[in-house]
């Protein structure tokens, strides 16, 4: 199996905040191009890669989708060379003080290495409190002189996490934006595996935009491509500090297969039986109502699309030190590839409710 770690590290070394995914989209397109028959961008910036199947036309298609956008920040005000910020997507404000970030300065087209800082309590209104500071009280310092900041940075400019990937012991990789670049890596593993595995169905590998805000990419790509079935890949909560409840799963111990209203039970059954046959360890993740993923959007696209959600455990979600086990990512990719190559031409007709 190909070593996906170098590509995954490159994926979490670039920005690509929701709505501004180009830096990461370019990287993914370059990696996918030799693995698929064609790549193109959707109207709203999602990346579509088509790997044609061997079946007779018109061929059914499966969409495998993962969002490539990342949460981040945006400049809201500039005061004496210091930047006020607001969030892009669901930011955990507790991780911001002391975080290394990049300010994407539109005035000078530069990437400014910067830091998020916490002003002393005496500079803030009493209502700010002495607990976690709300995002509007935090500042970004570029280290530049105020007059240069005014020239380079504008209100609205993006601010992304900038810490480098860190390889931890036991095959664990940590960094920002692993949610959901680790899924992009899993789709890539799947495409690599399919190079030597015949499949009847067409495969649309899709890197979606704006999952963290509106699921725009998932719903629009599903509508445009009209796959017969879809599999969405995203992170599940890994067990770890403060995380031991029923929603959490051990790192490096396998693939999550989700059930709940957003997922088609038949697809879940097929995937879990296949995982058993292949001896790929898996766990059952239950999502009682909204899965909080692209699966929510894909399912209700057009006339409705049978959708499955496949996961890997992720520690410290929405922090700059998210962590995943590389082994789990490889497992997700392999399971997808095996599933796709197992699809018979008439699979859709076999989907039954009871």
């Amino acid at each position: 199996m190909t070593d996906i770690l170098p590509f995954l590290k490159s994926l979490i070394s670039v920005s690509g905040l929701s709505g501004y995914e180009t830096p990461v989209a370019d990287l993914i397109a370059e990696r996918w191009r030799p693995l698929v028959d064609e790549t193109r961008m959707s109207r709203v910036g999602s990346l579509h890669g088509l790997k044609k199947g061997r079946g007779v036309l018109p061929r059914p298609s499966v969409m495998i989708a993962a969002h490539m956008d990342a949460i981040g920040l945006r400049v809201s005000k500039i005061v004496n060379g210091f930047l006020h910020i607001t969030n892009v997507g669901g930011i955990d404000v507790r991780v911001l003080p002391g975080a290394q970030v990049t300010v994407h300065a539109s005035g000078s087209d530069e990437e400014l290495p910067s830091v998020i800082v916490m002003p002393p309590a005496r500079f803030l209104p009493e209502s700010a409190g002495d607990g976690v500071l709300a995002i509007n009280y935090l500042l970004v310092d570029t280290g530049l002189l105020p007059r240069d900041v005014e020239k380079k940075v504008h209100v609205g400019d993006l601010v992304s996490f900038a810490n480098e990937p860190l390889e931890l012991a036991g095959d664990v990789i940590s960094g920002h934006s692993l949610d959901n670049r680790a899924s992009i890596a899993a789709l890539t593993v799947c495409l690599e595996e399919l190079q030597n595995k015949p499949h009847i169905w067409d495969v649309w590998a899709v890197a979606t935009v704006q999952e963290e805000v509106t699921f725009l990419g998932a719903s629009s790509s599903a509508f445009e491509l009209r796959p017969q079935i879809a599999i969405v890949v995203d992170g599940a909560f890994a067990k770890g500090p403060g995380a031991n409840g029923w929603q959490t799963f051990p790192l490096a111990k396998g693939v999550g297969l989700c059930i709940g209203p957003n997922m088609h039970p038949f697809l879940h059954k097929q995937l879990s039986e296949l995982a058993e046959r292949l001896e790929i360890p898996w766990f059952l993740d239950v999502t009682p109502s909204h899965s909080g993923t692209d699966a929510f959007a894909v399912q209700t696209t057009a006339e409705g699309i049978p959708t499955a959600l496949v996961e890997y455990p992720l520690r410290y979600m929405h922090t700059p030190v998210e962590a995943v086990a590389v082994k789990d990512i490889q497992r997700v990719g392999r399971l997808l590839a095996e599933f796709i190559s197992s699809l018979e031409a008439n699979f859709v007709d076999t989907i039954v409710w009871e």
Partner: protein
Amino acid sequence: MPTFGNAQLKLLEKLCNAIAISGDEGEVRKIVLEEVKPYADEVKVDALGSVLATKFGRTRSENRMRVMLDAHMDEVGFMIVADDGEGLYRFETIGGIDVRHLVGKQVLVGKERAPAVIGGKPVHLMNGDERTRKVPLDALRIDTGLSGKAKVGDYAGFATKFRRVGPSIMSKSIDDRIGVATLIELLKQSPPNIDLCLAFSVQEEIGLRGAKVAAQYFNPDLAIAVDSTPAYDLPLYEEGENISYNTKLGLGPAIYIADGSTLHDPRLVRFLQETAEAEKIPYQFRQPGGGGTDSGAIQRSLAGIPTVSVSVPHRYTHSPISISRVEDWKSTINLLHAALKRITPALIAVR
């Protein structure tokens, strides 16, 4: 004026990237020993681990003052205190660290500098006011990865790497590697009129401990603590002027008049001011107030030692990344170099 350029910034980078938590200063001590040995006449490592280096003057010995310069080698950090299994460890802080700076940061653990992160409960799994409360230290873990092998008692430090950005440097532990680098540069260009006694001291962050015994060893005529002091030169959230900035970046070295631990010797304060004026070196007075440096321990050692403090300002003290201005550091070296050359016994003569 002393030479100042890339070589000096490279030395500072090396010192800042080294990890030396109070009580575990070995990595910085090694760099300091390498740097001072070719220039000093006497070098020793004392019982606490401080490096004490002496460079004798070249003028007649009865006129030479013994001048102690102190900079602390240690920085704030962490110690592993319990092993929770599967690469997760409980830890305590060493030195004054605001726990709000910790969650989601990268650290290096133990002698092997094993990469690790500080993690806590994901925000999605929190309810209500848990999201706005400070995360207590005992809810955080150092995560070394699944097969991590840290040991109870291992020290850990922030993993931030030094970088230059425009007029600034961004780094961990500018407090007080910038003082350490300053002392090394002053040794390389030491003046002939004094015996220069350099204390690269340990354990400042947990109670000025190394400097106290260093002063007792050197028994100097006067001392200058060279440190880095916070600049709180940030805008207020609401309208109004910031009148409690402590120091401001870009205004030059900060001369202390009074802090929480020392009333700095007024003769030395005036002397530094006059030197700066005469040599046209920018300087600022640190706003009198709380806080302290090794001067507190040195001044009250032995029969009392006339002592003053000079600091390079930095923003975001004891956090994963601080910011200083290169020009402020350069001016600090220049001021101290000029001052050392001008020191005579008359400066502190008892009337």
